[in-house]
């Protein structure tokens, strides 16, 4: 965990291509981290939520982009952090009944964005309208 690749922070996560196998290393580019720190300090604090979602992943979707290139997939991991930063120096419980936290990765497993989304009222771990927005629910394979 940490800086395995120069210019990146790396963090272990479930590999959606083989969920029972070895983990995949998700990469946070240093310039992305720096940009959030210098320009979106509240979101920078919420990198903590990204880590929580990667540690406690509830769902993984593929097919996030309409124009995916060949076999390359864009990924969405979801979960419910306990708390998050809502404005400068203010932390609050994450409203997990109505929102779900989504972490988006590109085909190289590089983090590119993360955000709260309205949750599906029937499936709190899924963003609303997930059946039409994403190509496939990859993990877990079946949900009740």
């Amino acid at each position, binding site marked *: 965990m940490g800086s395995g690749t120069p210019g990146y922070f790396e963090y272990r996560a479930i590999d959606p291509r083989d969920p029972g196998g070895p983990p995949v290393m998700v990469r946070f580019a240093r310039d992305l981290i720096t940009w959030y720190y*210098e320009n979106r300090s*509240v*979101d920078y604090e919420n990198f903590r939520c990204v880590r929580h979602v990667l540690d406690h992943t509830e769902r993984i979707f593929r097919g996030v982009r309409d124009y995916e290139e060949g076999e390359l997939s864009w990924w969405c991991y979801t979960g419910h952090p306990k708390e998050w930063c809502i*404005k400068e120096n203010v932390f609050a419980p994450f409203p997990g009944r109505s929102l779900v936290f989504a972490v988006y990765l590109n085909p190289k497993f590089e983090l*590119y964005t993360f955000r*709260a989304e*309205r949750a599906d009222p029937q499936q709190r771990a899924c963003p609303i309208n997930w059946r039409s927005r994403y190509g496939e629910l990859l993990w877990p394979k079946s949900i009740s």
Partner: protein
Amino acid sequence: MAEEHFLKDYVEGKPGFKPEAWYNQYGDCVVYQTANEATYAERLDSLTTLYRSVIDDRVIGFQIKGVKEILKALKCGILAEGAGKESDETISLIALVIAACKLSHDREANKDQLEALAELIPHMAHEKVPIPRAA
């Protein structure tokens, strides 16, 4: 009080906020936000996502994805993998918003969402987005 940030070794100086548009090369998207508040996303259409403040639900920003495709459709060949910062070009943020609305293949946006997006226009009237230039 939150515990020490796990990325603290990757940053220096003071944290801040700038209401500026940014082209995110890792996601081929442009993000723009007018307030330093946590948001939740609300899909406008296949290319544009609104960001609403969790504090009062007002629209304070958006994300436009698929920027390379949008610019290709507009015949603005200014993007290339690995292009250097020193050769950045800029595109008007409003032009990008209009292009994304025009090129989206679906039309899910309702009147309230479009009005909320329009309310951001005075904030972004002069906003330019630096985008890597084609090599």
